[in-house]
């Protein structure tokens, strides 16, 4: 399939690793991604003015018009904003997670398994809520981990908020919220959101924090370690 691609600001900066992973996995699944030309920021979670936020996000959709109908958007904040800016659903806005399903996981070419390892699949907020803009396959991380033989822990914490967007405003708040989640789960933390990655990474002691794409690349034999 051919998709438009909206990386968003963090995937060209602090979350470059997620960008590389998404591109590689899409390639493996036989999808081609074409970046929306000259895209701009989606507004993230910074704008108090909804109209301004939607017009910034909407600008990206204008740039994508005529080029594609389906847009892959990895960052959960961008994903939500782009969906909100398109109330008529003239585009099919997809998280890369929605390109995965238990059936096509085998197509990525498994070279290693995850037997004996424990993982905590952590989705955070914006992939799961609000219902109108959430991903459809809400168990995909669990499905992927179990498909390759890994064990799962911390189910109850999977959609709690890590407070990632308060990290540079009220650090103690993020620390408290992240620690709550970490203390009630075990194993390697698997995330998809750049905010969650940063918050978890900052406060996790003695635990690894990885993107789901890192895990898949490991299974494919391309990442040497987890």
């Amino acid at each position, binding site marked *: 399939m051919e998709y438009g691609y909206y990386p968003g600001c963090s995937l060209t*900066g602090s979350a470059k690793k997620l960008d590389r992973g998404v591109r590689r996995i899409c390639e493996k699944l036989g999808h081609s991604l074409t970046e929306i030309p000259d*895209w701009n920021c989606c507004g993230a979670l910074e704008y108090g003015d909804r*109209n301004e936020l939607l017009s910034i996000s909407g600008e990206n959709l204008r*740039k994508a018009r005529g080029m594609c109908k389906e847009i892959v958007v990895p960052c959960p904040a961008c994903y939500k904003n782009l969906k909100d800016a398109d109330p008529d659903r003239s585009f099919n806005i997809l998280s890369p997670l929605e390109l995965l399903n238990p059936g096509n996981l085998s197509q990525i070419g498994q070279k290693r398994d995850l037997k004996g390892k424990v993982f905590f699949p952590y989705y955070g907020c914006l992939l799961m809520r*609000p219902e*109108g803009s959430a991903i459809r396959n809400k168990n995909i991380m669990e499905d992927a981990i179990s498909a390759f033989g890994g064990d799962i822990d911390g189910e109850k914490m999977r959609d709690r908020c890590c407070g990632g967007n308060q990290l540079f405003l009220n*650090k103690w708040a993020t620390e408290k919220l992240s620690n709550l989640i970490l203390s009630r789960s075990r194993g390697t933390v698997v995330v998809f959101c750049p905010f969650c990655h940063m918050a978890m990474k*900052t406060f996790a002691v003695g635990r690894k924090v990885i993107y789901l794409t890192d895990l898949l690349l490991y299974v494919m034999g391309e990442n040497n370690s987890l």
Partner: protein
Amino acid sequence: MKEKDHEIVFKHTGYRREDFSVCVGCKICASVCTVNDLDIAVNPQELLLRLFLGQEIGKEDPLVRYCTSCYRCAGACPWKIRIPEVVRAVKESLGMEALFEKAFKKSLNIWGRVYEPFVVVMAAPDLLKGGYIKHMPKWMEYAGFHLPHKVKRLKPLNASEGLDPSEKGRS
């Protein structure tokens, strides 16, 4: 924030004062709110009620200070009221934006994209005071050098043109 400033919140969120009369006071929003884990005094419903009644809203309100925009409330509310957007609008009209948020928007105004090194440098005074230095070793993987990219076609952000007025307030 006094009653006259409430208008800014309505303008920013696309809600009208009377839209908040649908709130049934069930407090589901308060019971699921993430800020509950930080401060038991949070109550999104009270914030909406204050806006509806035209009462004063203070900067000290824990919800206004710590809301994480997690949308738990909006997902659980029977009316799907977009509470985090209301909170963000309140913050903006109270002039509570932190240095980090200002830097973020400034970057967007200059380049149309967020250029993270710029945001970090602009917000440095807050970051230095806030004890972030000790996290630096863990953040090394985020560091990297690249030049900013300037977006060509983005209109100035404060140009009010953009959305069709009929689209305002749609969720």
